[in-house]
C-alpha cells in the first residue's frame, strides 16, 4: 500500500510552526517512513504532485496571491490541518486589521505601491473549509505528534479545548495571579503549551488564542478584563495584552472593541 502523502505549506508566517516538525528530532526519520513527504520546501527540493492525503498549512492569508493559492491547496488536499496562530487567527500581522495598511506600508517601504498586500491578514478558515486546527505561536510539538498519530490510525486527534488554568493546576504551578498579582491570560487562553509561562513566574500572554467555546470565551474575556482593571492595568494596557498573536481571534478582538 502506498504511504499517505504529506504536504506542508507556508503562507504569511515566521516558519516557526513548520520548524516544529523538524524539531521532532526523535520522530522525524520514523515519520519519513510512515508518510511520503511530498511537498515540504523548508526540508526538501523534491516535490511530488498532488493530490495530498494531509496538508499542514502554516501562516495567514495577507496577499491576493495567497487568497488564490489556498483555494488550490484545498482542492488537492484530502485533509487540511491549519497550524499556528497565523493560520488560525491571522497572527501578529493581523494587527494591521486595526490600523491603516497604507500607512503601515509607507512606514516600512519607500515606494509602497510596489508591495502587494491585503488590508487584512485573515485565518485560513476565512477562505476555505478547514478540517482541523492546531493553536499556538508556535504550535506545541506534542500536539503536532498527536495529530500525526491520529491521522495515521484514522481517528480524531485528542486535543483539549479547555483553558491554560487546567494545565497550570495539572503541572502543580502556583497561580501567578492569585499568589503574586501578576496579570495572566490563562483563564481565557486555550491550553496546549503546558502552562510554560506560569511555571516561569510569568503571566500567560495568550499564544494559543481564546478557549474554543466562543460563548464562554466572550464572557470570560470580559470578566478577566474587569479583573485586570482592578489590578491596576490601564485601558490601553488591556487592549495591548489582547492584541498580540491572536489579536483578530473574535473573542479577543471583541474584547478590545476592534474590528477582526
Amino acid at each position, binding site marked *: 500500500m502506498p504511504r499517505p502523502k504529506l504536504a506542508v505549506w507556508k503562507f504569511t*508566517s515566521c516558519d516557526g510552526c513548520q520548524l516544529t516538525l523538524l524539531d521532532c528530532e526523535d520522530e522525524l526519520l520514523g515519520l519519513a517512513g510512515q508518510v511520503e513527504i511530498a511537498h515540504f520546501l523548508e526540508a526538501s527540493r523534491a516535490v511530488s504532485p498532488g493530490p495530498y492525503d494531509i496538508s499542514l498549512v502554516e501562516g495567514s492569508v495577507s496577499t491576493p496571491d495567497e487568497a488564490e493559492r489556498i483555494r488550490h491547496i484545498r482542492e488537492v488536499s484530502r485533509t487540511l490541518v491549519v497550524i499556528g496562530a497565523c493560520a488560525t487567527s491571522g497572527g*501578529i500581522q493581523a494587527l*494591521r486589521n486595526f490600523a491603516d495598511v497604507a500607512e503601515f506600508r509607507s512606514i516600512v517601504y519607500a515606494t509602497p505601491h510596489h508591495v502587494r498586500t491585503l488590508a487584512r491578514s485573515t485565518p485560513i478558515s476565512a477562505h476555505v473549509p478547514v478540517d482541523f486546527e492546531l493553536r499556538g505561536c508556535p504550535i506545541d510539538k506534542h500536539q503536532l505528534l498527536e495529530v500525526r498519530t491520529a491521522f495515521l490510525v484514522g481517528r480524531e486527534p485528542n486535543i483539549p479545548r479547555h483553558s491554560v488554568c487546567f494545565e497550570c493546576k495539572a503541572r502543580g504551578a502556583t497561580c501567578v495571579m492569585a499568589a503574586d498579582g501578576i496579570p495572566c491570560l490563562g483563564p481565557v487562553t486555550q491550553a496546549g503549551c503546558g502552562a510554560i509561562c506560569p511555571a516561569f513566574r*510569568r503571566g500567560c500572554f495568550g499564544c494559543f488564542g481564546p478557549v474554543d467555546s466562543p460563548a464562554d470565551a466572550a464572557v470570560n474575556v470580559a470578566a478577566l478584563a474587569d479583573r485586570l482593571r482592578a489590578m491596576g492595568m490601564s485601558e490601553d494596557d488591556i487592549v495591548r495584552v489582547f492584541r498580540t498573536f491572536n489579536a483578530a481571534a473574535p473573542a479577543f478582538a471583541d474584547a478590545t472593541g476592534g474590528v477582526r
Partner: protein
Amino acid sequence: MTHRNDRSLRVGALSRVEGEGAMHVRVRNGEVADVQLEIYEPPRFFEALLRGRSYLEPPDITARICGICPVAYQMSACQAIEDACEVSVDERIQALRRLLYCGEWIESHVLHIYLLHAPDFLGYQSAIEMAADHRDLVERGLALKKLGNDIMEVIGGRAIHPINVKVGGFFRAPAPAELRPLGERLLQARDAAIETVQWVAGFDFPDFHHDHEMLAMTTPGRYPIESGSLISTGGLAFPASAFEDHVVEEQVPHSTALHAHLVNRDHYLVGPAARYTLNSASLSPMAREVAHDAGLGEQERNPFRGIIVRAVEVVYAIDEALRLIDGYQPPAPAAIEVPPHAGVGYGITEAPRGVLYHRYELDAAGLVTSAKIVPPTSQNQASIEHDLTEFVSTRLSLPDDQLQWECEQAIRNYDPCISCSAHFLDFTVERS
C-alpha cells in the same frame, strides 16, 4: 525561440531555505545580463506595528519575525531598549543571555548543516533522503540539534519563541541543578561536533572566491555573540549607535526585503564567514585547532566553505556553553528594574546568520514611537546577487536543471533566512 546563447532561468519556490524566494537569471548573447534574487515573503510590517506598543513588548513581538532565530531578535531588542532606558544588566544576566544564545547557534547551525545544506554536497534532495544511505550521520546531526533546542527549553521555556526573556533580564533564573545535565550532554556532544567539522571539510567545494567587505561584531577577549561593536575587513569600526551612519537600506522592485549597502562603499557580507575572518583568534583552543585541521585559514572567502565555518562555530558554541554552565551563578534578581525613559536605543547582536540591528525610540511613558530592524539577510542580499552573477557566468554551459541546483546550493551557502527579510526559491533563467 530559445538557444544556448540566450536564455532565461527561473528557480521558483526555493527549497531548504527559511522563507520564500525566487531567482531569476537573464542571459543575453551568452553573457549574464542580470541576476535577481526575488524575495516574495509577504510583508508583515513589524516596524509599523511596533509603534504605540509598550517598551516591554518588542522582545516577544519581534521574536515572531523568525522562528529559526527568535533569540537573536529578543537579544537585540532587549539591548536596544535597555540602551534607550539608560540601564545595563549585570554580568550574570549577560552570561545567561549568552548561554541561551549558544543554544540558538547550535540549533540553527546544525539545522542548516545537516538538514538544509549537506544534502546538496552529497547529491540528495533532502536530509530524509540522505538518511536512507547515511542514517548514522543524520542521527548525529539530529542529536546535536536537539541539544541546542534543549538549552533553549531549559533557559527559555521553549525552543521556538522562548518565553523567559524580558527587558532587564529573565522572568526566572534556572537553578544550577537544572543546567548541570546539559553540561554533561554538551561534553559528550563535543566529539560529534568535531566529527561534523571533519565530515564537512571533506566535501567537494567549487573553486570560487569573493572580495566583499565583511562586517561583524567584535567583543574584547571573546568571539562575538550577544554584545560588542562592529568592525569590517575594510577598516571600519563603529558602535551600534552609528549603524545607520554606515549602512543604508534601499527598496528594490523585485523584493519585499530591503537591500543594504555601506555608505560610500559597496555591498557587504555579514554572517559566519565574516565573524570568523574578523575574530578567529578569539575562538576556543579546540575550535581553533579543528578549524586549522579543516584547512580554514586566516580568512574564509569561498562561500561554499561557509558550511565548515558553521561547523567550527558549533564546536565553539558547545565550548562556550560548557564554560558558562561551569561558572554559572544564578542572577539575583533575575532581572533588573527598567523604568520607562524617553530616548533612542540601539542594539546589535550576532544572529546565527549575522549582524542583527534594532533601534527603538521611546516616549516618556515607554511607548515605542519608531522602530527599525535590519536583519542579516537584507544585508547580504546584494552580495549574494553579486556572487550569483559570477557563479552563473562560469556555468552557462550547464543544462537548466543542473544550473538551477548549483545556484540553489550557492544561495544556501548564505543560509538566507528569508522570513526575516522575507522566503526563497523560484528559479528562472531567461536565455533570450
